[in-house]
């Protein structure tokens, strides 16, 4: 790389109580390049980026922006230096519309005297419109963000980042919640930004994306800088071994076996509110059944209806051969041995202000402590076991979950449901935001679960995961199950066609 780097960070250190999050890390970024940052959960990726964005202060180290050494005190200063960040967790205000979000706190004012304090809505929407069009997106500037799909929200985030005249845009796991088609859109957008000379920092756990979008890749491990390479010089396996310090033989370890008793049978389930139409499916013990579909196909809604967390209008659900009364509660389903690992970990999977331990035992209070008396010893053994089994990076079970890295938070959610000893698990995007090593572990854990006789229904937006893990796959499209595909016949193309409603499946359901 030649020329003056947009950003050059040298010897960055950052400690949190009990954790050395960054330990002498170097990082630089040139105009027009996409620099991918990879590493295991808790490796320090987000921390490094938050330092560049002014959200955290480094304990030591220097940062140069276009050749000048700077101290970035707060996010506003980062903005004025041309650095924008799109956080791992979305940061849009749900009740405001797209234009208001893009220009939050910076809305254009009316030029008329006396009315200068008022927002010039016309100009704001026109500006937003121009901006969004220049990014080749068709998001409506008047739409309330709450009602937008994840992908469109992401477009707003990018537009917001671009609108401050950013020369550097940092994207922390932008594709975690996107489906393949939306990812393609985002990549086109990134290419466009690159062609304008903007530098992109791209964090992802999806290593196959690195070659598609990256120019250089930097690897962190345990807070330490491992190496920076040209993307063209490394293979996915190289990256994995740099990240994990060893190689991972198999990301999808599966042992297929004869399925047993019927664990879940859904017949004719419909719900107006959830937009589910006459859904039929079943899962047997010993099976992992994949549920594929685009965002908005109704997979999460279906999972919630089955779990008693959202009401449905008609249809029947049977668990282990027992009919379930309509509109049951999660409490009763948990007692029957059903677990739902929800998609949205922050608002549905975790209580962020409680400790790791309190979160881990939350779903198994009745099982672990049948006499309502909490034994500290028993709790500690369950929690410590979970921390060890899932390699959750936390100094102890007492730490508040909000201080864990994104992937480790996800592991806490998994730990919570594994502690329940359930026999039917519904996993909704179980490996979102999890690093490859942990992903392989979660997968082998799922395989172990079904080997022990449990049944798994797995929702995933990653087709390779669906293909690699499932005994059978159901494809959903607009609230219907449109196809059931056995493992032998499942291919990426075929599933995609069903998911987009282009083809009718062999077991059409209505």
């Amino acid at each position, binding site marked *: 790389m030649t020329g003056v780097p947009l950003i050059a960070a040298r010897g960055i*250190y*950052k*400690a*949190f*109580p*009990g*954790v*050395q*999050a960054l*330990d*002498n890390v170097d990082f630089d970024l040139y105009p027009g390049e996409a620099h991918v940052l990879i590493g295991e959960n*808790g*490796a*320090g990726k987000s921390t490094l980026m938050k330092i560049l964005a002014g*959200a*955290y*202060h480094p*304990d*030591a180290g220097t940062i140069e922006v276009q050749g000048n050494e700077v101290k970035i005190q707060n996010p506003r200063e980062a903005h004025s230096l041309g650095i924008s960040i799109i956080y791992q967790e979305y940061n849009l205000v749900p009740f405001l519309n797209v234009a208001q979000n893009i220009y939050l706190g910076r809305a254009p004012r009316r030029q008329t005297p006396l009315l200068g304090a008022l927002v010039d809505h016309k100009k704001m929407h026109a500006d937003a419109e121009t901006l969004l069009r220049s990014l080749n997106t068709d998001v409506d500037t008047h739409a309330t963000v709450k009602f937008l799909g994840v992908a469109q929200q992401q477009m707003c985030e990018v537009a917001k980042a671009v609108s401050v005249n950013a020369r550097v845009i940092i994207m922390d796991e932008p594709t975690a919640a996107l489906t393949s088609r939306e990812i393609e859109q985002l990549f086109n957008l990134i290419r466009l930004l690159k062609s304008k000379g903007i530098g992109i920092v791209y964090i992802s756990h999806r290593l196959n994306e690195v070659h598609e979008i990256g120019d250089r890749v930097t690897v962190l491990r*345990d*807070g330490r800088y491992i190496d920076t390479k040209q993307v063209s010089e490394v293979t996915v396996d190289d990256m994995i071994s740099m990240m994990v310090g060893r190689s991972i033989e198999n990301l999808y370890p599966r042992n297929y076996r004869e399925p047993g008793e019927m664990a879940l049978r859904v017949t004719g389930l419909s719900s107006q509110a959830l937009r589910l139409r006459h859904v039929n499916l079943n899962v047997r013990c010993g099976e992992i059944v994949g549920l594929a579909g685009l965002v908005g196909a109704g997979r999460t809604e279906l999972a919630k209806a089955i*779990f008693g*967390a959202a009401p449905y209008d008609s249809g029947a659900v049977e668990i282990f051969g027992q009919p379930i009364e309509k509109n049951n*509660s*999660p*409490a009763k*389903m*948990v*007692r029957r041995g059903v677990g*739902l690992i*929800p998609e949205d970990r922050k*608002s*549905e*999977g*975790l*209580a*962020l*202000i*409680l400790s790791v331990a*309190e979160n881990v*035992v*939350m*779903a198994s*209070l*009745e099982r672990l*402590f049948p006499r*309502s*008396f*909490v034994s500290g010893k028993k709790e500690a053994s369950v929690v410590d076991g979970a921390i060890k089994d899932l390699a959750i*990076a936390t*100094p102890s079970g007492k730490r508040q979950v909000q*201080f864990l890295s994104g992937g480790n938070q996800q592991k806490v959610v998994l730990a*919570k449901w594994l502690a329940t000893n359930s026999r039917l698990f519904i996993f909704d995007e179980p490996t979102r935001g999890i690093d490859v090593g942990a992903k392989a572990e979660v997968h082998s854990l799922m395989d172990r679960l079904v080997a022990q006789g449990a049944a798994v229904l797995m929702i995933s937006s990653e087709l390779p995961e669906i293909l690699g893990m499932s005994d059978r796959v159901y494809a959903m499209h607009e609230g219907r199950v449109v196809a059931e595909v056995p493992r032998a016949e499942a291919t990426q193309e075929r599933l995609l066609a069903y998911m987009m409603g282009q083809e009718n499946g062999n077991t059409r359901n209505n």
Partner: protein
Amino acid sequence: MQETAAKKPAGLRLDLSFVYRFSRIFVLALLVTFMALVTPNFLTGTNTINILRQASLSAILALGETIVILTAGIDLSIGAVLTMSGIVGATVLKMDGVPLWVGVLAGVGCGALVGLLNGLMVAVVRLPAFIATYGTMWIAQGLAVVFLRGYIIYDFDKRFRFIGTGYFLDIPMPIIIMALVFGVFWFIMHKSTLGRSLYAVGARQETARLSGINIQRTLILAYTFSGLCAGLAGMLFVARLNAAEAGLGDSLLLPVIAGVVLGGTSLFGGEGGISGTVIGVIIMMIIINGMNLLGINSVWQGPVQGAIIIIAVILDQWGRRAAARQQVGG
């Protein structure tokens, strides 16, 4: 990810979360020292016992209130429920041939019942806690006035009055009863699954629900506990004053809520606990007692307590954020 402390530019750094956690004890110590210096009577045995005795009644109320606030709710009815239960209990005590314990039980039971109704309104009807308990407050207070029509019920059996005025091993009974209530609640909050559920519901209700926790049961129990505490404190009040009248619980709500927030329980739920509350209430009592000893007109007690609530919440949020910011750097 390594389990080592900062090894590079560590330097001397005050651990703010530690300071935050023990800030209440500092405040208490400071206050005691100050009062001891300015008023000679403050540290005398009688005054100390006096403060603790007064504090124990408020503390019983505050313990129940803490549990409700931990679930991200609030119970504004405690003062009125105290009055109503005191009058119900007193009425039953005055009936011929009714054993004393039945009277006490009637008062406590009345409080628990009103608490249960509050709980049903919040958990089942899904009214905002503020509205449900504010309504209950006026109903309970109004019923007490209507029922007594300006009369006072007074002069009770000595054995009943013992729970308010007596001593056991030289310790006033209210203090002992408060300690017992504290013990029971401490056990519930820290050693029972119900305690876990209460914190979970307060910290994030949707997560708790999807984890199979029975939200309605948990909330109903929280409000019932609060009502029960109000009923018990009502009976202790009647026993101590040897009288029941419609103004029994007036001006108790304010110091109780001030004590809870001073004790570090977050009004957003899920954070804090009953141990802090006891200290918070004692601080409040010292302030009120101090104002009396210093001869400050009692009309100032309201404004001072109101200001304390606001300042305490501001300081608490600030302290929490500073401690958290240190966790996240900066």
